[in-house]
């Protein structure tokens, strides 16, 4: 296995390809997930504005953007933790075999969460209940969701822990989360999430809280395990280099709006949207001579702003950018929402 090289943002061999198990998309294959015109509002703020993307079976998708761009919001909506009526939701989320889950009630979601859709969180130390043992947190879903008996669940739990790379699994079962290191905690989370062989795994910045040396291991573990189960994976990331390494497709978000989306190789090697290009310019590589930071500012989430939310910070902004929102259009192998793209 080729060691993961995080420094090369322009690597032509992405990790999925290196694993030699790239699933070639068949044109008529129905996507696992199709998000169309998803808008989410909370009070006066429009947090997601007409987000559109799709995910095919077995593929990996990256939701890329700065903090507050709405990436985690999308993930939480995709697992039903943000629903009507706590938030205002419009648009559709088509999950293959479950219909439009944007309209689903809590009962429908209880059948999906932990079974067809699973999620791993950013800070594993905070996402594991400090008062329960690892074993209990791992075995409860096995027994409740999969219906295993106590001894079968225990055996399966040990299997799962070993498959995510934890040695001495039996003693880990009786350990408490605070007794494990950050990397081990995240592995446990992955084991729990994948225990039901979900169709879709949501990984919300799974390595942000970990040391750089552990990051690569965890990402590889996630990709290997999802490949093995033929699961699809959505990564929420703010790291462009990481996105290029582990995602087939990518959605670039800013202020809750989709800026550019498409196969990651195409979008990241030859970005057309000024924001994507600017993000790329911020990545530090071995041969970087000059860092080009973005002009400062934060997006406005007021529901009344009509145009592109990146316009205030964009170097290529036109008058119409603030006035009306550019539609997401197919351009050169990707989808782009810009009035004045790069060529």
């Amino acid at each position, binding site marked *: 296995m080729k060691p993961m090289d995080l420094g090369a943002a322009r690597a032509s061999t992405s990790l999925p390809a290196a694993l030699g198990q790239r699933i070639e998309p068949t044109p008529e294959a129905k996507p696992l997930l199709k998000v169309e015109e998803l808008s989410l509002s909370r009070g006066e703020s429009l947090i997601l504005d007409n987000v559109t993307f799709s995910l095919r079976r077995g593929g990996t998708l990256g939701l890329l953007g700065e903090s507050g761009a709405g990436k985690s919001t999308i993930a*939480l909506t995709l*697992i039903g*933790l943000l629903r009507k009526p706590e938030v205002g939701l419009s648009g559709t989320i088509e999950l293959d075999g479950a219909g439009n889950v944007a309209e689903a009630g*809590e009962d429908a979601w*209880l*059948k*999906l*969460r*932990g*079974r067809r859709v*699973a*999620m791993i*969180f*950013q*800070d594993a130390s*905070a*996402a*594991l*209940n*400090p*008062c*329960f043992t690892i074993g209990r947190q791992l075995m*409860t*879903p096995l027994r*409740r*969701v999969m219906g295993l008996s106590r001894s079968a669940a225990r055996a399966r739990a040990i299997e799962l822990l070993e498959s995510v790379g934890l040695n001495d699994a039996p003693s880990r079962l009786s350990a*408490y989360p*605070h*007794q494990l290191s950050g990397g081990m905690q995240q592995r446990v*989370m992955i084991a*729990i*999430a994948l225990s039901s062989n979900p169709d879709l795994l949501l990984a919300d910045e799974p390595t942000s809280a970990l040391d750089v040396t552990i990051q690569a291991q965890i990402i590889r573990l996630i990709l290997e395990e999802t490949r093995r189960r033929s699961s699809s994976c959505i990564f929420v990331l703010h790291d462009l280099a990481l996105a290029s390494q582990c995602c087939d497709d990518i959605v670039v978000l800013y202020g809750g709006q989709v800026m550019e989306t498409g196969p990651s190789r195409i979008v990241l090697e030859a970005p057309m949207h000024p924001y994507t290009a600017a993000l790329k310019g911020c990545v530090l590589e071995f041969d970087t001579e000059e860092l080009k930071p973005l002009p400062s500012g934060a997006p406005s989430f007021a529901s009344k702003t009509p145009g592109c939310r990146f316009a205030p910070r964009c170097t290529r902004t036109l008058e119409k950018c603030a006035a009306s929102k550019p539609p997401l259009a197919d351009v050169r192998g990707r989808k782009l929402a810009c009035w004045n793209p790069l060529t």
Partner: protein
Amino acid sequence: MLLFAAGKVLQTLMVLLIVSVVSFTLLKLAPGDPIQIMLGTENSPEAYASLMKQLGLDRPMVEQYFHWLKNFVTGDWGVSYVGKAPIFQYAFVEALPVTLTLAASALALSILIGVPLGVLSATRRGSGWDAITSVFTLTGTSFPSFYLGILLIWLFGVKLGLFPTMGFVAPWNDFWGGVAHMTLPAITLSIYFLAMIVRMTRANLIEVLEQPYIAAARARGEPNWRVVWVHGLRNILMPLVTILGLQLGALLQGAVLTETVFSLPGIGQMITNAVLNREYGIVQAGVMITACLFITTNLLVDLAYPYLDPRLRPR
């Protein structure tokens, strides 16, 4: 782990020792001459001197203290001047069980009703229900318990005639009679705790439910009731027990007042009557019992912490 427990026990013993010294000093500072009181009309210089020698009151203070301490630990608490009965019998065997029954009933009532109420109010924030509970918690923690007792007597005893308003019936002798007599006192004593528990449960649960591990549990498909009642509740046990430990003093204090309102022959009434009758031996016995109760319960709470929060266990 054992070292931790041993350290705590040692601390406790030290505190008990200090309390005993304070208690002994109190007794010595009390006005009135016990020898004179005991001799009464038979007072004479020779009788005085011989009784003094007999009681060991002519020895140096430190020696008297240790003599007293030895007596205390072995259950020899002296004799009451008024009732002529051994104080130990009066205080420990007769009065203490009454107070303990009252305190335990009130505590059980407040926990069994307070925790669910607190959970409900935490999960239905901003609703009318929540508003009612916050008014209740505010009034409940500041309302004078002895007045509340009188109000309850007036309402349930006088106007509605539902419950007896005085006296104690031991539940181990007559269960339902005991329950009937204990109902109003237990309710009176529990109100403060009920309000405190509801407030603490609500505040802590709201904080806990915002934690990532709760969202993670939901993401695993756990139904809402399990998320709140299993995951959520387990994590508020420690702050709750801490608060209860701190409020134990208020429980004993309230018991004293409640016993007086409902004429229950417990420690509270015992101490009050002793002060009025200048029976300092009984006052001291009451003080020592209360302090020991409080200290031992705090010790138990301290020792329970590692069980409640695994992060506190020594690795």
